[in-house]
Each structure stands twice: as structure tokens, then as C-alpha cells.
């Protein structure tokens, strides 16, 4: 059954590329949308009704995959964000050929991400991280715009460095553990605790993942890639791709595969805190909507890294909850950015200001997105940040907890300045003719509704979905 999450999208790509022109129009978009909905709903149903029992459907495809609550939450998130990205693509990509290629590449990225969350082998994990990265490189530069190509180039170069780190780590693990499966690697930590090779190998892999996550000081590629990519691609990249390839892998490996010592945990916390503060300060100075969101993304991922470094069960549950909330809020904000970019052909906030009133749905949903990302009650982002701060305080990490709390003020500062500049302003110039973008509005409403619902139904969501995770992760 888990292999269906890989095989069905692959089969869809094969069918869509059969030599039949009829398949390349709206049918391709429609089937991809249905696939994303089915993936989200299926994972949600299994998450709600605990009797998760998966049997291999086709005996040949019995990959070494495992499925748990964390996997199901992530599969659901991947489905939601890909769905939103497809809706944005429907409204923003005019050229049908380009739209078709976008759908195919999104499906490839979807296969990559699904497999990353399902595999139980370090080398397979690396292979599918690369698949997702290759699909992302092409997606960023799909317009062949000069800035986008520059963004892709930076991403490609830093990804290559990450690749070298990860491959060297895998080589060390083959030497030390005799294999690359998660259980072999985990056993190598318990068997020979003083073996320097295991520590070096774990350190190298984590360095690779920090680059992929775009945490400070490895963040050089991220703002360029996010801001130069076309609207639907930045939704996909910021919403889920970098989170799965970087921060989820970091989460999975640091909790259930590697055994991190105290100094490694401290370093992770330090990098997390540094990312929160520096990226928030950088975000305040930005004048481009998408660049500000990109820096905000680094800052929010810092919270997850901080919680991972803390490594108490509550902190880990908070990290997963924040991962989900951040994916939803950031996708929503990038959908809003895509909507404005399509209507006004710019993401410069000073220029956007001169256009005056913005569409109602975009204004309201962006407010929800900002408040959720900044951590205002009763929205989803507030609860996850609260759990992380409580976990840090109860673990005795008072300084880090204070940094996390104070950084919220910075977050609120740049988000409010953005909101007043872009949305709460009077028209100074003639407005361009605004065409209605119903698909984008649907994506905005769905994502905003999730952010509100998760926040309002917090007790149910926390106790049924996220807090039980701490038992799985330990």
C-alpha cells in the first residue's frame, strides 16, 4: 500500500505523456488535482481512524517503506500544498505547453517527496532528495528568466555541496555500519559509541541537510530561488519542497536514526536561534514581497531547528506541529504573492502600494496567513510556537526560549509593515484592469480555512494528531 504513493503518480506521468494531444490540456491538470486530493484525504482518513494496516498490493513492488503518524501528516501536507500550487499554476501559467511541463515536474517532485517520507534507507533517501532537487531546479527556471536562472544556479551549486556532504556520510556509514538501512545506521551508534567515524558521518549528513533547509549561515541560495521562481513554483518550494528535503529529513534522522550527543544538539539549537533572529532582521529590511517571505521562511524553520535541538518529546511534537502550520501559512502567503504578481506584474511593495485596494479574498487571507505565521492566537501558528516555547522553558533552555519569544515581535513587525504597505493603503495611481482569478481564490480560501480550523480546534488536533507523535519519535 505505501508503494502506491510512489507508483500512482509515476503511472499518471506515463499516461499523460502518451502520444495523445487530448491528455495534455485540462485533463492533465484535473487528474493531478484529483491525485493530490486523494493523497491528502487518504492520509487524513488513516490518521483519524487509527487502524493503519498496509499490505503490499503488488508483491513485486515491496519496497522497504514504513508508514507512521508522522509520515501520514507529511503525506497529507504534501498533497495540500501541491494542490494549491496546481491551482495557482492554472491561473498564472498561460502557455499550455509550459503548464503541461509544470504538471509533470510537480508530479516528479511529488514522487520524490512521498518517497523521502516513506523510505527506511539512507541511500534511497539521498536518491529521492536528489530527484526532488532536480525537479525543483527545472521548475525554478521554467520561464527561462535571467533572475530565475541565477536563482537556480545558486541553488544547484549549494545543493552540490550538500550532495558531497551526504554522499561522504553514506560512505562512512557503509564502512562503519555495514549497510545504509536506518536500523543498521542506528545500531552503529549503540554498538560503538566512541567510534569517531559515526560522529563524523552523522555530522556530515546533518551539514548537508542544513544547507538543504536553508538555515543561517547556509541560506545564501534560498531568497534568490524563492523570489525568482514563478508564482506556483515558489508556493511549492517554500511550502513543502525545502521543508521535506531539509527539515523533515533532519527531524527524522536526528530523532530516530542518529544518536546526537549534547554538543550536536546545542549546535542545532544555536543555528536555530541564529536563523530565527538574523533572518527576521533581514526580513524587516526587504522591499520585495517574495524576498521578505523567503527570509521569514528561514526564520520560521529556525524555530523547528531549535525544537529539534531541544529534543524533549514535547519539543519534537511542537516541531512537527510547527512544520505543518508553517507549510500551510507560507504556502498561503506565497499564493497571495502569486495573485498580486499576476494582477499587478510586480512584487515590489513600494510599487504595490501605489496600486491601492487589493482583492478582498487576497487581503483577508493574507492577514490570516501573516497572523498565523507570526504566532497570534487563536490561529494555528500560535499554538505550535507556544508548545515549542513551553518545551524550551521546561527543558531549562531559558535563553533560547526568550529568543524565540522576543523574535515573535520582530516577525510581527515585518508582517504588519508589509500588510500596511501592500494591503491597507489608498490608490495613488490608476488601477490596472483586474481580472478575476477564481482558482487562486479557491487555493487561498482552502489554506486560510485550514490555518483557522487547526487553530480553533487546537485541543482535538493536538491530542489526536501531534502529541501522540512523541511516542513514535522516541
Amino acid at each position, binding site marked *: 500500500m505505501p508503494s502506491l504513493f510512489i507508483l500512482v503518480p*509515476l503511472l499518471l506521468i506515463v499516461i499523460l505523456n502518451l502520444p495523445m494531444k487530448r491528455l495534455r490540456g485540462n485533463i492533465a491538470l484535473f487528474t493531478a488535482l484529483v491525485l493530490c486530493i486523494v493523497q491528502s484525504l487518504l492520509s487524513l482518513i488513516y490518521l483519524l481512524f487509527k487502524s493503519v494496516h498496509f499490505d503490499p498490493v503488488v508483491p513485486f513492488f515491496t519496497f522497504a517503506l514504513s508508514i507512521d503518524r508522522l509520515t501520514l501528516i507529511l503525506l497529507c501536507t504534501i498533497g495540500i500544498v501541491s494542490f494549491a500550487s496546481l491551482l495557482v499554476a492554472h491561473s498564472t501559467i498561460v502557455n499550455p505547453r509550459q503548464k503541461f511541463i509544470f504538471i509533470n515536474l510537480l508530479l516528479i517532485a511529488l514522487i520524490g517527496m512521498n518517497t523521502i517520507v516513506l523510505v527506511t534507507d539512507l541511500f534511497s533517501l539521498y536518491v529521492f532528495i536528489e530527484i526532488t532537487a532536480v525537479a525543483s531546479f527545472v521548475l525554478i527556471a521554467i520561464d*527561462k528568466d535571467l533572475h530565475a536562472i541565477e536563482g537556480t544556479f545558486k541553488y544547484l551549486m549549494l545543493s552540490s555541496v550538500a550532495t558531497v556532504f551526504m554522499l561522504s556520510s553514506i560512505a562512512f556509514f557503509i564502512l562503519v555500519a555495514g549497510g545504509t538501512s536506518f536500523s543498521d545506521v542506528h545500531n552503529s551508534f549503540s554498538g*560503538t559509541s566512541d567510534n569517531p567515524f559515526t560522529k563524523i558521518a552523522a555530522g556530515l549528513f546533518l551539514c548537508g541537510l542544513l544547507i538543504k533547509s536553508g538555515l543561517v549561515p547556509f541560506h545564501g541560495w534560498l531568497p534568490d530561488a524563492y523570489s525568482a521562481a514563478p508564482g506556483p513554483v515558489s508556493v511549492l518550494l517554500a511550502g513543502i519542497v525545502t521543508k521535506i528535503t531539509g527539515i523533515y529529513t533532519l527531524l527524522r534522522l536526528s530523532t530516530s536514526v542518529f544518536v546526537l550527543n549534547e554538543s550536536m544538539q546545542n549546535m542545532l539549537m544555536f543555528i536555530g536561534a541564529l536563523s530565527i533572529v538574523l533572518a527576521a532582521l533581514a526580513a524587516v529590511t526587504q522591499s520585495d514581497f517574495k524576498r521578505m517571505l523567503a527570509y521569514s521562511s528561514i526564520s520560521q524553520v529556525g524555530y523547528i531547528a531549535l525544537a529539534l535541538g531541544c529534543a524533549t518529546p514535547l519539543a519534537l511534537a511542537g516541531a512537527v506541529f510547527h512544520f505543518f502550520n508553517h507549510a500551510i501559512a507560507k504556502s498561503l502567503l506565497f499564493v497571495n504573492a502569486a495573485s498580486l504578481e499576476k494582477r499587478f506584474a510586480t512584487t515590489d511593495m513600494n510599487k504595490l502600494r501605489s496600486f491601492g485596494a487589493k482583492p478582498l479574498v487576497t487581503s483577508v487571507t493574507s492577514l490570516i496567513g501573516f497572523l498565523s505565521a507570526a504566532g497570534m492566537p487563536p490561529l494555528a501558528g500560535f499554538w505550535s510556537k507556544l508548545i515549542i516555547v513551553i518545551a524550551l522553558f521546561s527543558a531549562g533552555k531559558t535563553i533560547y526560549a526568550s529568543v524565540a519569544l522576543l523574535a515573535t515581535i520582530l516577525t510581527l513587525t515585518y508582517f504588519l509593515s508589509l500588510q500596511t504597505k501592500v494591503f491597507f493603503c489608498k490608490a495613488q495611481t490608476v488601477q490596472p484592469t483586474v481580472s478575476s482569478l477564481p482558482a487562486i481564490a479557491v487555493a487561498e480560501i482552502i489554506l486560510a480555512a485550514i490555518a483557522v480550523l487547526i487553530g480553533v480546534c487546537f485541543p482535538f488536533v493536538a491530542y489526536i494528531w501531534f502529541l501522540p507523535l512523541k511516542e513514535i519519535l522516541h
Partner: protein
Amino acid sequence: MIMNLTLLVCLLLVAIWTVMTTRLIHAVIGLAITSVTLAIIMNHLNSPLAAVFELSVCAGLIPVIFITTVSFTQRISKKQLRVREKERFIKFWYLPVIIVVAGLLLALFTHAPQITVPPAGAEENVRNVLWNLRHIDLLGQVIVLLAGAFGVVVFFKESGK
């Protein structure tokens, strides 16, 4: 031991030449020779499967793609070439020195910890490795090729004009 050391020194020399040369075509040839040397070392270290892949992909396929790309570039004059060679040497002379010194230090001063090298099992032939042990990676390789194909379409195929 002597054989391994000789091969290692050869590998290092060819790799340095590959990096330091200013002619693209020489760098490609250097890369191919580096890969061949590495393949011989891998075969010597009881990893024939890795050696075959190294030989076919890194020494065969990749140089062909690079040479195709290089054939689209323009040559620079001999004078410029000499200037660039000199500049590059001044800029990067310390890199090979660092590699050699680090390698010697590692070899002389570190005590290799106990590591378990998996024995070259008789059953682990290519078919078993690819189709039974690592078939998800094989599927991954197919998907990477697919992504690459879409990349080629995006970057190099003009839309019907």
C-alpha cells in the same frame, strides 16, 4: 600495497592536472582518466559493481556530454591561455599541497578505528543488488532521467517557432 599506493598517486596527479589545466578539453580528458584510475582502484578493493558503474558513467557517458558542450565553445588565443595558466597557478597552488599534506597526516598520525568492511558475498551479484536489494534506487534512477528529460525540453526546445 605498492600497487594501491601507485594507483592512488596516479589518481591524485591526474585529478590535480584536471583541475589546474586551463583547456576545457584537457580537463574532460583528465576527468575520464581520473575515473578510469578510480575504477581500477575500486576493482582492486573488491567492488567490481562500483567499478563498472564508475567506468561506464563517469569515464564514458559524462565526458561525451562534456565534449559535446565544449565543441560549442570558442578557443582563446595562446597568449591569453598562458596568462590564464599563470593566474590559475598563482591563485590555487596551495590546493594540491593541502590535499597531499592532509593525506600524509591522516595516514601517519591517525589510528584507524575498528571498521567492519562487508565481505564480498558470493550472492551479491549485479542482478541481486539491482533487482532485489536496491530496486527502489533503480526506480529513482528512472525518475531522475525523466526529470532530466523534462529539463532538456524546458531549456533546449523552442516552443514551435
